[in-house]
């Protein structure tokens, strides 16, 4: 059965949904950023032009990776991971840039680069190869659990050092999910559940992190302090609410006029809600849902475990980050700074997400036609 599977067309649903999301992203970045771009750069198209170029670059990378056999990645998983880890460390060299109190960017001269986006993908690839190599031993303590959590700790810790809690959570969540489906022992699930609660308590209630507690309070009742800690959430709800069922029309958001800070970034979903209404937000969530479900389907139908873990890892990554972002803007979880994959403005994020989808699409070209059905028959 090995290598017998014919290379075929990539998963159409993923391809279509991704292109739709990127398209919506470019249009919405234009709409949401124009007031800010006009005010700061004198050109309402400034951020749109950049996003458009990133989209072209990102889609090219996606098409390229779609055609590169993913097994090359497997062979080079270690090197890939090493490079992304090193890029993460570059932040602490003079090349690192500090913006708004956080050191998250590297200056490449012509543009800036956010290593955490690279670390996400590098970690998925390396962890997938680790999980495949360990096979059944992943469930053991010494050979599975310890090294797995060392890797998870390394990736997450590197991101956490950049004071980026939400991205750390995304990375950790993605890798733990991968470990979960690989066969994480149940007692670990239980312990890590407790550990996360303990960690969250620490992150929220410990000294020096009072702002997180305020955010939680603001989440409980954002309108109690709508000019202070609740401000962003309240503004986001105003935007979504004003949109109603059909929205106020493309380009006609009022909330983007500085009521929502950086409306083209973490809160772009609110602007989509305001301009395109419930119809628009539903459509965007549906597109994400299609990508996630299809990624899992690709994983299930993949012909080797590396592909299985990479595909499901990418599915988890998209799921965790997009749903977390939407949960924040709908005031379903406390506010945390995380952008919306494929849509929010920002080059590194877009390119690496499209690269991930490229890898996913490549894996989808080597799937067995519907293993799930076969399995059901077998079972």
């Amino acid at each position, binding site marked *: 059965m090995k290598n017998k599977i014919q290379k075929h067309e990539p998963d159409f649903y993923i391809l279509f949904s991704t292109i739709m999301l990127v398209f919506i992203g470019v249009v919405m970045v234009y709409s949401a950023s124009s007031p800010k771009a006009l005010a700061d750069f004198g050109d309402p198209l400034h951020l749109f032009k950049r996003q458009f170029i990133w989209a072209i670059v990102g889609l090219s990378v996606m098409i390229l990776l779609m055609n590169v056999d993913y097994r090359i990645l497997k062979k080079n998983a270690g090197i890939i991971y090493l490079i992304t880890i090193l890029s993460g460390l570059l932040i602490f060299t003079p090349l690192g840039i500090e913006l708004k109190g956080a050191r998250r960017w590297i200056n490449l001269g012509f543009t800036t680069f956010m290593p955490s986006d690279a670390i996400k993908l590098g970690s998925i690839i390396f962890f997938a190869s680790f999980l495949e190599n360990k096979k059944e031993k992943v469930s053991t303590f010494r050979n599975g659990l310890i090294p797995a959590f060392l890797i998870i700790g390394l990736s997450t810790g590197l991101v956490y050092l950049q004071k980026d809690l939400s991205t750390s959570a995304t990375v950790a969540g993605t890798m733990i999910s991968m470990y979960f489906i690989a066969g994480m022992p149940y007692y670990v699930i239980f312990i890590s559940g407790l550990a996360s609660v303990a960690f969250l308590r620490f992150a929220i209630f410990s000294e020096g992190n009072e702002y997180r507690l305020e955010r939680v309070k603001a989440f409980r009742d954002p309108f109690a302090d709508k000019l202070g800690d609740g401000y962003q959430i309240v503004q986001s709800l105003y935007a979504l609410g004003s949109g109603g069922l059909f929205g106020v029309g493309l380009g006609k958001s009022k909330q983007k006029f500085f009521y929502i800070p950086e409306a083209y970034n973490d809160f772009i979903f609110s602007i989509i809600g305001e301009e395109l209404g419930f119809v628009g937000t539903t459509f965007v969530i549906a597109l994400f849902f299609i990508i996630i479900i299809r990624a899992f389907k690709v994983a299930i139908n993949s*012909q080797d475990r590396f592909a299985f873990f990479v595909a499901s890892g990418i599915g988890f990554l998209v799921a965790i980050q997009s749903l977390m972002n939407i949960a924040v803007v709908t005031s379903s979880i406390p506010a945390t700074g995380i952008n919306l994959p494929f849509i929010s403005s920002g080059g590194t994020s877009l390119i690496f997400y499209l690269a991930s989808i490229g890898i996913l699409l490549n894996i989808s070209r080597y799937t067995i036609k519907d293993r799930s059905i076969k399995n059901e028959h077998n079972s």
Partner: protein
Amino acid sequence: MKNPTRLNIRRLKFAIIIVSLVVFFLFYKLAKIQLVEANDLKKQAMRQWTKSLEIEPLRGIIYDRNGKKLAINAPSYTVWAYIAEIENPQEVAEQLSPHLEISEEEILKLITTGTNMRKLKQSISLEQAEAIKSLGINGITITEGTKRYYPLNNLASYVLGFTDIDNNGQYGVEKSYNSYLKGTPGLWIKSTDAVNRQLPFDGEIIYDAQNGNNLILTIDENIQRFAEEAAYEALVNNDAKSVNVIVMDPMTGEILAMANKPDYNINSPRTPIDEQTKMDWANLDSEQLQNEWFKLWRNYSVNDLYEPGSTFKIITAAAAIEEGLVNQNTHFHCNGFYREIPNVTLRCAKWYDPHGDQDLYEAFANSCNIAFINMANMVGKETMLKYIKAFGFGELTEIDLIGEQRGIIPMQPKDISDVNLATISYGHSVAVTPIQMINALSAVANGGYLMTPHVVKTIIDEDGNIVKNNLPEIKRQVISQSTSKIMLEMLEKTVSEGTGTKSYIPGYRVGGKTGTAEKIIDGKYVQDKYISSFGGVAPVENPRIAVLFIVDEPSVTYYGGTVAGPYAKDIIEKTLEYLGVPKEMSEEEIEENTEELIMPDLVGLTLLEASKLLNELNIKYVLEYKNISQESIVSQQFPLAGQEIDTNTIVDLYFEESKP
């Protein structure tokens, strides 16, 4: 290479269920926000998007009766500071201080405290505004509004009044007609971004401001000038405390002029009018200064009371004639004193040289107190009070100005003692406002009708449509036409032969009555402080104007005929000439009016120069030439230079024919 295990797939499916649940939950949240709570959220959002600004309406313009603008709106500039945008408050304060005429410390305090926007100074000039704009300071902006401007400065200041810095009327018609003048503010509702800039779409809803209505006064700028000039002269020449003048159309109740001297400039009501006042005010504390201002802003004509003195004899005479108690043939005897009341001796003004026997006209012209005491006794307390009230004393004239006083008259006949009745007959023991006095005089002159005096003739809107017309309004008829006619004759005789001769104008039939009263201060008569007045009507055959001229505390002499009469005469003569009332000289007037003159030498002058000279001397001349110009030279004249001539002489002029 191994395929995914069943465990892998089972767990992945479990993960799919979790993801699906999360997605489902988010759909639920979105539906709740965007469908269920949408309206409420949108309402709150709209509240933060929309800002409403009041649009200031333009205040109505005030015109005189001929359409001359007396009060207009001038652009005015207000300086604002956006505190958050000011980078270096110390430097800004230093830069602004000389332009705003506010000390640096004060500016610094203003721009470093308070909320985000602060008014620094209101109504600065265009030059100041431009100077500040050219400094280009961040966070300092200038907005344009309007402020009241009175092009004629203190002219008619007491009628016009003034407004406060926010254009609310404070005094005069600015106050009494404030509701008409101020208009209705408009509203500008605009959608703005988070830093108050207008959004590029869904921009704005504007409810236009409704500008104020315009007033057309009954005041005539020219007559007002005559009145003010005369009042000022009287003030200076008599070294008086103050002078008050009202000129009224007796037929309609329209006030043609109303003036007080000293006055103030309504463009800056708090600035002393002259050096003397400035010095007087220099040492006052703020409360005293405020009192001085309030005193200065009082409109004597309606806000203050005075004892009318002999001008009130008009009322006594009118009552007696109307009641049929006296006529031309009634005679009065004056021996200088009145001793009928036990323990009281009242005396005539000319007690040292009693009037002796006099008929009604003579008694009036002589202003004989004794005759009027007798007249009042004939009329009786009850009837006398009835007429006093009927002429409008003790009640408001309802003139359209603020703060009108009722005056003080006896409440009931039983409040009038015998002495009171006697003194009331010549205008003591009563206190009236000037407007009441002239209104009563007008009633006497116009055939007996008490009118409602008013200073606003018409209210028109922005487009000139009439909003309200103050038509002449008769309150009541007080005396008959025939009594009015007799009164006018008596008034005329007073001016032509009696105490009012200083107001005699050749060519115009002027009627009038003088008055002098000792001032009452704190309820007691004060010696050597007088109020002297003259009330006049002209022309007697068809009264066009009534004039009341009051001089408060003249210091040189105090008889109303001397202190007030000549100035009232000035006003009457100028006004009648201005109104185009022809002068009709009687034979004797022409004779009396001719003056002896010496014929000037005109030879060698041009026609222009010669005619100017002759016009100045009021001498008529004739010339019969076709080919002369203004530059033609006089070659001969008759009568010759140096001869005695009179003003009736007509001079013949001969010219050198200009050469072709």
